[in-house]
């Protein structure tokens, strides 16, 4: 036997039978057609049931067809792919539906007037009023909370990752985990009992003072664990080789952290902080408890009741006036746009420091 015939006989076959490219599309169209005839046309179900039936028909049909033509492994691959796409669509559906509802109902009242006036003196019969006071409240409360939380949270994470060895670090991590689970109403009650009722009387001639600052404190309690945990994860992702490279140049540890580790982790840290900010902007319960709300504009976060956008939405949704629901939707849209803008701005800012590739 020659070498040539030997290699020819045992030549590896790398080709496989494949369904034609148009087969899945055709099958999909067929499944929709059959489902429409069997379910929709007979009046057995509506569009949703038709869709589900079509999807099921498609998956089963594709699996069988593929198993016959292409074999078992490819068939399972096609089933898995279909399921992944289905899960994606299911996950996306509520999001798109919410965005659509928010846009269609929120844009009705959202205009310069709405953004520029408060609710002071607006009665149930007035087609007027806006969210200016609430926007100010949200910006001030979330801003102060961020100013408090970011230094504390980032420093805490630096301690856990870079310095903490042994018991104390483990303990801190544990308490941060516990804090993550604190319901916002409990954070609000804590600040009400601790700050408003015990501390603030000393600063205000013996009378408790409800304020935007108290709300910011409560929001800080909620933001802190998120900031610590996400910063911690990001710091851990920075390769040890970078730290060693810096140490080998005789750079002290704290400078290595400030000038090399933190900049490397910055984009991730910013993402974590923005998640926390977004959560804080949406919190209502603590604001009701310790800032009370206020229909008028109050720029001073240290004294007097203050509203916030989420509180505004809550109030308007429960107000007996035919104009209130429109204001609630507009407030909700404002809140979403505000958080989105802040997130995008923060990400751009974090990216600008990175060198252009």
């Amino acid at each position: 036997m020659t070498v040539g015939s030997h290699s020819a006989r045992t030549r590896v076959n790398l080709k496989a039978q494949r369904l034609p490219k148009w087969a899945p599309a055709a099958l999909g169209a067929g499944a929709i057609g059959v489902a429409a005839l069997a379910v929709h046309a007979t009046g057995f179900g509506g569009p949703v049931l038709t869709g589900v039936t079509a999807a099921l028909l498609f998956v089963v049909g594709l699996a069988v067809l593929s198993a016959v033509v292409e074999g078992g492994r490819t068939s399972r691959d096609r089933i898995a792919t279909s399921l992944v796409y289905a899960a994606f669509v299911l996950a996306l559906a509520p999001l798109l539906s919410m965005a659509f509802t928010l846009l269609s109902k929120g844009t009705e009242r959202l205009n310069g007037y709405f953004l520029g006036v408060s609710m002071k003196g607006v009665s149930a019969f007035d087609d007027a009023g806006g969210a200016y006071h609430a926007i100010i409240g949200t910006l001030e409360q979330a801003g102060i909370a961020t100013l408090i939380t970011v230094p504390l949270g980032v420093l805490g994470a630096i301690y856990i990752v870079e310095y903490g060895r042994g018991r104390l670090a483990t303990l801190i991590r544990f308490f941060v985990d516990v804090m993550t689970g604190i319901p916002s109403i409990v954070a609000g009650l804590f600040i009400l009992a601790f700050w408003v009722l015990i501390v603030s009387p000393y600063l205000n001639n013996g009378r408790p003072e409800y304020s935007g600052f108290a709300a910011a404190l409560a929001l800080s309690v909620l933001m802190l664990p998120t900031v610590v945990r996400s910063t911690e994860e990001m710091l851990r992702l920075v390769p040890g080789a970078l730290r060693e490279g810096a140490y080998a140049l005789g750079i002290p540890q704290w400078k290595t952290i400030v000038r090399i580790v933190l900049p490397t982790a910055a984009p991730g840290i910013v993402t974590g902080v923005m998640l926390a900010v977004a959560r804080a902007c949406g919190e209502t319960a603590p604001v009701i408890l310790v800032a009370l709300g206020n229909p008028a504009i109050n720029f001073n976060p240290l004294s007097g009741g203050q509203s916030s956008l989420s509180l505004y939405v809550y109030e308007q949704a429960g107000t007996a006036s035919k104009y209130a629901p429109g204001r609630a939707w507009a407030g909700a849209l404002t809140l979403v746009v505000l958080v989105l803008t802040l997130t995008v701005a923060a990400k751009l800012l974090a990216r600008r420091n990175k060198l252009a590739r």
Partner: protein
Amino acid sequence: MAKRIEAVNVSAYYGSFRAIDNITMTIEPKSVTALIGPSGCGKSTFLRSINRMHEVLPGAKVDGQLMIDGQNIYDRDIDVTAVRRTIGMVFQRPNPFPTMSIYDNVVAGLKLNGVRRKAALDDACEKALRGANLWNEVKDRLNRPGAGLSGGQQQRLCIARAIAVEPQVVLMDEPCSALDPISTLAIEDLIAELKNQYTIVIVTHNMQQAARVSDRTGFFSIDSTGEPGRLIEYDDTAKIFTNPSVKRTEDYITGRFG
């Protein structure tokens, strides 16, 4: 200003595991010393004990004395950052700082140790990059990211970064193992030049490389896994590679493992 390093009974531990045992050797100034030996015999560990990088890992510690200029770098009153500035290190994998430009990478050691004058930094940057044979390739793109260079260029960038702080000693842990033959040659040429100014210790798995670049060679080995690594033989490179006095060295060099 290169310095002599004297290791006296140096042992290093990872937790309770002793990775190297009682290493005693004198590393001559203005020379290249190669450390060779089978994988896991503690070459890297010993190298990292020379500039106190070993203790960066949790649980790691070093026993014994490492003398430079008559001072034991493991004494209590030693400033670790000063030790590391005197004894620079180049790692096996290039590790440029990803958020920094080429320029900032090179001057990182100076800048973060307080040198502010732009002119001084510019001079140091050019000098170090020329010293690392990289200047011509990057002089037009000093403010591009350091991570955007090729592997060999990144490694030379790391060498430039290490020599920019003007150390007395440069430690290199398999600096060419991730590089192509041409970059390897560039770095070997560089080592030959650096020798005029610095004391160089290089770990390598490449016998030819050790024979080419080094003046003296230390052969490390372990008796079996779990045992600490020991210095088996330490002599002039020419002698180690032609006429070693220990049988194990000869076996290792000729390819009969041991």
